[in-house]
């Protein structure tokens, strides 16, 4: 098999995938309506996958979840491993960076996700619950958490955001 044939296929498939999930132009010859129906189905599947993996986050956003996620998804096509876990993490961080406040249940999911690395450390404030958690994942032991009954915002926690993942 020539490397040229593989390069050619990569280009054709790359154009199609970007058209389907990243708002790229549709390559010629494809049916407009059928491919846009496919785009919608792919977005719904992704949205549902993240919702199932990050239920607290999605529930906290209510009807806005779909609006925010659709906006996030086109600009951030999926890549890499552990698709919905990683996708939900990027989505939550995207929300935080925009100043949107995820619910405490969503924050908890992000906190635990940040602790999923092998030697991870994370700190997170939960305004609704009025508490702050510090967590570390230790080999052979798992996640160890300390809770303090006081909400510390991101500015106060900046110095302790050392998670290695």
């Amino acid at each position, binding site marked *: 098999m020539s490397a040229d*044939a*593989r390069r050619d296929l990569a280009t054709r*498939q790359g154009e199609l995938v970007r058209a389907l*999930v990243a708002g790229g132009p549709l390559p010629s010859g494809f*049916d407009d309506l059928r*491919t846009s*129906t496919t785009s919608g189905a792919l977005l719904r599947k992704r949205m549902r996958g993240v919702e199932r993996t990050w239920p607290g986050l999605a529930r906290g956003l209510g009807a806005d979840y779909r609006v925010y996620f659709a906006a996030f998804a086109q600009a951030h096509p*999926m*890549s*890499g491993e552990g698709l919905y876990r990683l996708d939900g993490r990027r989505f939550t961080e995207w929300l935080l960076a925009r100043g949107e406040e995820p619910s405490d249940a969503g924050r908890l999911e992000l906190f635990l996700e940040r602790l999923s690395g092998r030697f991870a450390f994370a700190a997170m404030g939960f305004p609704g619950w009025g508490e702050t958690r510090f967590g570390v994942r230790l080999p052979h032991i798992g996640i160890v958490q300390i809770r303090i009954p006081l909400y510390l915002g991101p500015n106060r926690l900046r110095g302790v955001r050392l998670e290695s993942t």
Partner: protein
Amino acid sequence: MTTATRDFGLGIGWRAEIAPLIDCHAGLGFVEIVAESVDPKHPGDALLRLMDRGVAIIPHGISLSLGGAEYPDPARLERLAKLAERFRSPFVSEHVAFVRAEGVEAGHLLPVPRDRETLDILVENVGVAQKSLPVPIALENITALFEWPSPAMTEGAFLRELLDRTRALLLLDVANVFAAAKNFGHDPLAFFRSLPLDRLAYVHVGGGEEHDGVYHDTHAHAVPAEVFALVEDLCAMTHVPGLMLERDDQFPEPEDIERELATLAAAVAAGNARRNGVPHVR
């Protein structure tokens, strides 16, 4: 006609949400696990119990992207191989599809262009997979809402040549055949006849729903009656070694799943009776 594998009877796609139902169901001959969601080192008690009971466990990959431009990823292949070894699986399965290109994940199975160049790449990728797997691989037909422009081959001819050249087994998704018939007007029985049915390993049956005149294969809705009718037609045509229900989301009550399994069994019995020329009362 000889068959490629032993008989497995009825099966179901193993999902954590329906694990208790599967655990309590004595009539299942096999389950299929999603390779990406089961850790070969820590498969969990539920699956090990099934294995002890003699239920065959078939690892099913969804992210190998055999129809992609890249060679299959060694880490994904190793995981499939480890699962097959852990569960002493008779074979593993994957799709005739690609799921990523140039670093972007589609998040679902996409159809490949049906031309000679792509077929050659697929054959080569399947060969790479076969070299690192301890058991045979079965390849599944997918469904899509669109087609690549000006295909050089029919889907049946494309699949047949792929299976002939790789000697891979066939995993036939009857619901996908139904979707293609509904969305593109393809003739499902002609499609069955165009396939090398002597290489049939097992069959997928799943549900879907219609949206604005387009049939979506969702695995989250009931199996349409027409799909069960196609199962009967297929069983009337050839001996089918195993058939399984696929349900991935919006899990219904256990009784509804039991009912679908019973309907599936009835369709198989009716088809087998037609094939054997036995009058069959449903």
